[in-house]
């Protein structure tokens, strides 16, 4: 009995329980038998248990070097350190599928544990959908792509892992990205459940938003880590190459971002139900498409390490998902009559629509660019590349407009914003943009596009920071110290301020991208000991190469001094690693040193003995902001997602005859003002900073716009002066 036998048995049992869950959950829901639903819940946990067991069996096979298992023999060898051996678990196709199935089952288990928070009617259908996806994965895992298949004769030693994957980034980047792909299944399951039951209310929306935020955060982390991995391993001085696989990971992220915005319109105004459902389904379908694309090898990419015929299965699954979703749509459409009521384009919902247009537009453009070589090949039989210049020219402007909209959007009120109020709110951000546009040429930055892009970024950053400052100032006036006031804003209005933080992170990321896109300086030189090269204010002096040989790997590094501002900064050692088994694939040890906000990126392109090296140097301004921005975005996502304590709803019973001085202060005449005119000014100005989470204060009253309290709650930043309009 090998560990791999335990693995196979676990997979088969997991498959059985997954099918069982689907059947029982559906029966429990349609026949209204709570016992069956409870049984389905336990069955979901059982699936998770067996998948954990199967994964443990695979890791045990790796760590015990059981080269009788084909997958283990192909992806590890005796010389690999234990952590790379263990991470080889997801280094190949079969293992990464198992990892995906494992993550799906764990997320399903988390869903079961937190099922109390979700609307009860939906729970069985969500479980059934999740287990439907799990069933597909398990069928693939037990048939065409089984990681536990044994070789007729065990090998003495394994082949080993692709050296590009033997990098610390490998330990965390692929699992995050695969988890990100997978995490779109839960919102999808909620969408399916809602379409079956017809329950698309605010409770449903809250649940699905929570899961979508989690998926979005994981995918954000996966994307940033992927960029970081490419930057530190591939050696071309960049972090994003618009490679098909990178695009595939970006596509669901774009639709998920669109959903997170447009679902707020549904939350507040009851609009866009159909559109939001399509975005959820699109996110899931795109994540399946991404897997299909990576696995099938239909498109060449630097990132795909495993090709096989499995692509056909994913294509079939993708078709099933799309057909099934469209079928449900048609079935449910009559009930999806929206509460369409639109007042003005210059409003928060208007800006969200623009945001959606841009995000979905960027998604389509990227998808089109990714698929175009296939189309061209089919029509003209000519291989054609759609590379970075295409995406930079098509997606670049879209993202710049998006960042601009990101600055304006939060300043707009729901329903309608007067141009006067808009002007007042835009003053400071516009000033920030003007200063930026004026100062940059003085600093010697003459590129018009860089100037526009930076000015737009400062506009958005100015808008967000000014908005935060106004919130802090209001609270400060009520006696809170500044820092505490800031903390309280984040504590009380998590969605809103978490969102601002995400936006701020995105601006930082954009500044990093713009800086490195427009101002990267690159230079190559063949150096002999004692020779030096000058790049953009940095001087590199070459001393020679150092060669170290270990049993399995040879490491060759060049030794260089870095001089900057007339001072010796440090020694750097860019190099190459040559694994004995992959002699023709030397991996790079790139030296990246950061001075302020500028990266000095040194790559050993070639070498000749110990006294000649071809050095390729990139000076990458502002790249550290990309990573910093990514971290800030992630932090903001987590703040948005972090469960808020359920609000105590105070039920106030006021005898109608009562009269209080408070009502005099309010000024009854202000009612005609509509928005926000009801409460005393101090309350209003704070409400202006509080929407998002505020909507939950009075869930019972949603949509009753005619009743005064909701008028107050849909508060707008400028309403203290809007009152008289």
């Amino acid at each position, binding site marked *: 009995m090998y560990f791999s036998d335990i693995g196979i048995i676990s997979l088969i049992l997991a498959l059985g329980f997954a099918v069982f869950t689907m059947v029982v959950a559906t029966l429990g829901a349609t026949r209204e038998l709570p016992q069956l639903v409870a049984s389905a819940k336990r069955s979901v946990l059982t699936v998770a248990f067996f998948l954990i067991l199967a994964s443990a069996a695979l890791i045990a096979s790796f760590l015990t070097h059981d080269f009788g298992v084909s997958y283990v023999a192909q992806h590890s060898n005796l010389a690999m350190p234990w952590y790379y051996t263990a991470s080889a678990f997801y280094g190949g196709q079969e293992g990464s599928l198992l990892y995906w199935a494992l993550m799906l089952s764990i997320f399903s288990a988390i869903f079961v544990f937190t099922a109390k928070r979700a609307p009860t009617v939906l729970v069985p259908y969500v479980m059934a959908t999740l287990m439907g996806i799990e069933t597909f994965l398990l069928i693939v895992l037990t048939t065409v792509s089984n990681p536990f298949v044994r070789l007729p004769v065990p090998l003495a030693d394994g082949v080993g892992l692709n050296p590009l994957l033997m990098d610390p980034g490998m330990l965390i980047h692929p699992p995050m990205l695969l988890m990100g792909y997978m995490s779109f299944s839960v919102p999808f399951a909620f969408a399916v459940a809602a379409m079956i039951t017809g329950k698309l209310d605010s409770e449903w929306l809250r649940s699905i938003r929570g899961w979508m935020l989690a998926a979005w955060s994981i995918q954000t982390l996966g994307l940033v880590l992927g960029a970081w991995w490419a930057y530190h391993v591939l050696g071309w001085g960049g972090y994003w190459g618009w*490679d098909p696989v990178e695009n595939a990971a970006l596509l669901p992220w774009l639709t998920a971002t669109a959903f997170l915005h447009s679902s707020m319109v549904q939350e507040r105004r009851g*609009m866009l139900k159909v559109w939001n459902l399509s975005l959820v389904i699109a996110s899931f379908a795109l994540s399946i498409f991404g897997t299909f694309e990576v696995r099938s090898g239909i498109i*060449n*990419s630097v990132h795909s390490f495993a090709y096989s015929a499995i692509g056909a299965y994913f294509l079939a699954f993708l078709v099933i998902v799309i057909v099934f979703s469209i079928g449900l749509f048609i079935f449910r459409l009559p009930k999806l009559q929206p509460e369409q*009521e639109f*007042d*003005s384009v210059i409003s928060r919902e208007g800006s969200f629509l623009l945001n959606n247009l841009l995000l*979905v*537009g960027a998604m389509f*453009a990227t998808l*089109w*660019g990714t698929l*175009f070589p296939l189309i*061209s090949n089919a029509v003209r039989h*000519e*291989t*054609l*590349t759609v*590379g970075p210049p*295409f995406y930079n020219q*098509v997606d670049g402007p*879209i993202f710049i407009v998006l960042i601009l909209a990101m600055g304006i959007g939060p300043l707009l009120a729901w329903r309608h914003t007067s141009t*006067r109020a808009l*002007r*007042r709110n*835009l*003053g400071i951000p*516009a*000033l920030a943009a*003007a200063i930026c*546009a*004026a100062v940059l040429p003085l600093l010697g930055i*003459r590129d*018009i596009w860089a*100037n526009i892009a930076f000015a737009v970024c400062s506009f958005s950053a100015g808008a967000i920071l000014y908005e935060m400052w106004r919130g802090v100032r209001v*609270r400060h006036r009520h006696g*809170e110290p500044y820092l505490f006031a800031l903390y*309280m804003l984040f504590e009380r209005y998590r969605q809103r301020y978490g969102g601002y933080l995400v936006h701020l992170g995105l601006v930082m990321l954009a500044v990093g991208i713009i800086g490195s896109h427009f101002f990267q300086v*690159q230079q*190559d030189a063949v150096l002999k000991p004692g020779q030096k090269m000058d790049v953009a204010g940095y001087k590199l002096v070459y001393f020679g190469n150092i060669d170290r040989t270990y049993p399995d790997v040879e490491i060759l590094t060049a030794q260089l001094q870095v001089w900057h501002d007339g001072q010796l900064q440090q020694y750097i050692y860019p190099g190459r690693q040559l694994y004995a088994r992959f002699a023709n694939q030397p991996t790079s040890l790139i030296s990246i040193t950061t001075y302020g906000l500028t990266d000095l990126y040194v790559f050993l392109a070639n070498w000749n003995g110990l006294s000649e090296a071809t050095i390729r140097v990139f000076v990458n301004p502002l790249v550290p902001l990309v990573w910093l921005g990514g971290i800030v975005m992630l932090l903001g996502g987590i703040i948005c997602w972090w469960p808020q304590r359920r609000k105590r*709803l*105070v039920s*106030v019973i*006021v005898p*109608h005859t009562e*009269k209080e001085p*408070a*009502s005099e202060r309010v000024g009854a005449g202000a*009612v*005609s003002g509509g928005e926000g005119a*009801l409460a005393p000014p101090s*309350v209003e100005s*704070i409400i202006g900073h509080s929407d998002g989470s505020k909507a939950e*204060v*009075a869930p019972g009253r949603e949509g009753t*716009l*005619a*009743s005064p*309290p909701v008028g107050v*709650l849909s508060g707008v930043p400028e309403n203290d002066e809007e009152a008289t309009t």
Partner: protein
Amino acid sequence: MRNRHSLLIFLAVAAIISSIWFYTFLISPPKQTLDQRVHDVASQLKCLVCQGESVADSPATLSQQMRGVIRQQLQSGKSEQEVIQYFVSRYGDRILLSPPWQGLTLLAWLVPIALMLGGVLLLFLVLRSWQSQSDKSPLDADRTESVDIDQNELAYYQKQVAQELAAEDSIFSRPGSEVD
């Protein structure tokens, strides 16, 4: 008064920005060094022996030679477009990193642009129909009538809002708003 003030500031700011942009764009277009021009051209060409890398990024020998050719041709007075055309005539369209603006590959550029424009148009039409819907909606009439709300009821609602807000965030609590 304050509003006129802010309008003036806003207009001034817009004027500053646009004049700077016009100045940098029209009057003093940036002078590029030869290195930059070589890089510009090389980054539009695909390295034929590598995977997904441009001639500018690739360390391969072929790419090094191609960079040398680009430098020579630019030095001899050819424009960037002419150098790119030279490589296309020798290697075909596959050397380009982005599809050329002609023939079938024009579609690669036109479809995203058309989709964007179509999206804007669709959004415009949808919004217009929504707006006309909401103009006719009876809810609107209700809203204007709700001015004649009973004062007691109004006070009650105000109280409830104040109380809910106070429960939500201590900053909203104020003396005199407690309800017995």
